[in-house]
């Protein structure tokens, strides 16, 4: 009788069933889409962070950059010095080339002995130090100095000073041209491939760094960078005025992001060439277990009062660009929109159920008059609402899948910028800045996907059941309060 009555009621009151189901369907679909996109954004953030910090890195240690020294802010970060005999001089002028390997601006270094301290902390399974550098190359032609007469004309035409770095072309004595290029370089421990930036890469060509490369002038390049520059395994590249043999190229294991750096060289060589002997900029730490992370973080913070210890969660905040905007949008607007629509759908279901109970006053009064118990009537109303909710849930599930499929078909691209390793969360951009030598950031394009997980499906079904039960409980409660005599009298 229960199912017969239920089926007849739902079929006989199609409009009410349809309105409740549509409301629930829209709400559930929206919640599904927001949840899936939110998961996609989190995955994209994780991919970006993974490419920078490596797979399995639970914590990173860096040192916040201090305030700029007097006169540092705004000035150039790299100074090139040329002697009178530098360059190759011809009748037309002098060709100059110089490159320097320096620590990124905004990046602070600290003593490499911190690594020993980290490895001595309980709960630390592995740790590896890196040094983030930038190789800046000045490459250009300076024209022949003018004659006396020409000098007078030149003085009238311009001030004759050198242009600021980065203002390529048009500098010098009216007609000189030069380029300034920068390449990100990371000094890594060649023996440590389980943690750190190289743990999130796969070999594209050649071979990777290993313990035998300590002290060697060898480099592994990002495959994308190598292709852009036309460099292949076996070629030599110039870093800090020194030739490095390219032994391999690597690509990110994530399809969504590039690797952390353009080039990877042995840590000791990086320290020596940049004049940072015994210094590092980051330490990647892997905890023995995920549950240990908070305790390990606390211990590290206690042991290293001068350094900043960040978890992956902290680092997620350092991902900016449109991916960061998407994350904010999802977590703020998406969340509240979902809650609002869900609340509206629940409210519609409740109001329609109450309206239905009111309209069926005589029906329920009659059933009570012929002996139906309150429990039986409440069960009937709740059952009808539950089924309406489930119909809405099924429709919402289908609608949600379609919405997610559309998003995945469009595959929107989001630009993202993550803070340099040493800057740590909130340390983007460094101090001073200006010119091309400001702190380098890891910029990449990520394709946003909205994965469908079991939890999304479970959530949709759960919401449908919850909405149905909520409406049914309130409608049933109202029906149970009807006294048969009053119910019959009110419609007499």
């Amino acid at each position: 009788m229960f199912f017969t009555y239920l089926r007849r009621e739902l079929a006989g009151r199609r409009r009410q069933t349809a309105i409740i189901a549509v409301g629930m369907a829209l709400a559930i679909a929206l919640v599904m889409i927001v949840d899936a996109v939110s998961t996609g954004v989190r995955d994209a953030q994780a991919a970006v962070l993974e490419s920078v910090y490596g797979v399995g890195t639970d914590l990173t240690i860096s040192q916040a950059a201090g305030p700029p020294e007097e006169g540092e802010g705004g000035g150039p970060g790299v100074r090139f010095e040329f002697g009178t005999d530098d360059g190759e001089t011809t009748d037309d002028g002098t060709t100059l080339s110089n490159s320097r390997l320096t620590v990124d601006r905004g990046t602070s270094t600290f003593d490499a002995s911190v690594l020993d301290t980290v490895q001595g902390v309980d709960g630390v399974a592995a740790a590896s130090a890196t040094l983030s550098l930038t190789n800046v190359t000045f490459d250009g032609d300076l024209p022949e100095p003018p004659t006396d007469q020409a000098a007078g004309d030149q003085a009238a035409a311009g001030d004759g000073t050198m242009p600021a770095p980065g203002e390529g072309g048009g500098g010098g004595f009216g007609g000189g041209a030069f380029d300034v290029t920068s390449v990100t370089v990371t000094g890594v421990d060649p023996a440590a491939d389980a943690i750190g930036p190289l743990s999130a890469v796969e070999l594209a060509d050649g071979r990777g760094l290993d313990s035998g490369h300590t002290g060697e002038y060898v480099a592994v390049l990002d495959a994308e960078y190598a292709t852009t520059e036309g460099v292949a395994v076996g070629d030599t590249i110039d870093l800090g005025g020194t030739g490095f043999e390219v032994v391999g190229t690597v690509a990110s294991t994530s399809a969504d992001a590039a690797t952390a750096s353009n080039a990877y060289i042995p840590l000791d060589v990086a320290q020596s060439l940049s004049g940072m002997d015994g210094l590092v900029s980051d330490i990647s730490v892997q905890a023995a277990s995920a549950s240990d992370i908070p305790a390990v973080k606390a211990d590290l913070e206690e042991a290293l009062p001068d350094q900043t210890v960040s978890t992956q969660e902290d680092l997620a905040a350092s991902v900016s660009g449109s991916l960061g905007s998407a994350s904010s949008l999802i977590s703020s607007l998406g969340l509240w929109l979902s809650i609002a629509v869900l609340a509206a759908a629940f409210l519609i279901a409740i109001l329609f159920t109450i309206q239905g109970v009111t309209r069926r006053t005589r029906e329920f009064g009659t059933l009570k008059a012929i002996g139906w118990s309150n429990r039986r009537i409440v069960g009937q109303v709740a059952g009808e609402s539950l089924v309406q909710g489930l119909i809405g849930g099924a429709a919402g599930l289908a609608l949600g899948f379609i919405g997610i499929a559309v998003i995945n078909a469009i595959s929107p691209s989001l630009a993202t910028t993550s803070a340099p390793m040493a800057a740590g969360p909130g340390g983007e951009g460094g101090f001073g800045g200006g010119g091309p030598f400001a702190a380098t950031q890891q910029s990449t394009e990520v394709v946003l996907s909205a994965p469908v997980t079991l939890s999304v499906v479970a959530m949709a079904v759960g919401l449908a059941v919850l909405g149905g039960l909520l409406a049914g409980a309130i409608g049933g409660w109202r029906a149970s309060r009807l006294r048969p005599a009053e119910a019959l009298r009110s419609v007499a």
Partner: protein
Amino acid sequence: MYTLENVSKTYRQKERTIHALKDVSLSIPTGQLVAIQGPTGGGKSTLLQMLGALDRPTTGRISLGEADLSGMPDAKLGRMRATEIGFVFQGFNLIPTLTAQENVETALEPLGVPAEERRRRATAALESVGLADRAHHVPSELSGGQQQRVAIARALVKEPDVLLADEPTGNLDEQTRDEIMDLLEGLHRDRGLTLVIVTHDSAVARRAERRLHLAHGTVTERA
């Protein structure tokens, strides 16, 4: 047998107190056909609700056989209605989405009758009111007289001791009215039902064994 002793019923309606029944005392023997007449608002329906265990008196005592309806909890009143008392309403009060057969079956639902037996008894009840061929029609596909026959079948399918009818012919034309009254009289006679009918229609009232007049909450016997 119904026994009413000094039964009063008052309602609060906003600032006013309405005395629907005033100190009513009467008895209705088992198997009697009683008609209750009186002006609108005189207390007829209220008295029927007391007899039908749908409501309790404000003061006084009302019993059906050995059961004291005035002091019975809601659940037991519901059980009494499910087993002992059948109702027929002026507006038929059928469930609009259920077929005639299913409407009749609703009366057996609270008794926990198995589905198969429920169907069999409902079919027999519809046959007894001459509607076997309309079993699978919903109320909107039936005439007023047919709907009232379904309502009577629903009231009788549980084989109650008492049948209470509130203006059972109020919405019917004369010919149908007579058919329904013939049916009710026959059931009363054949099954020994106690039948209490509230009516404005003197033609209906004249067919009763006993006529009561209820005005201003007070009952008087009519010849």
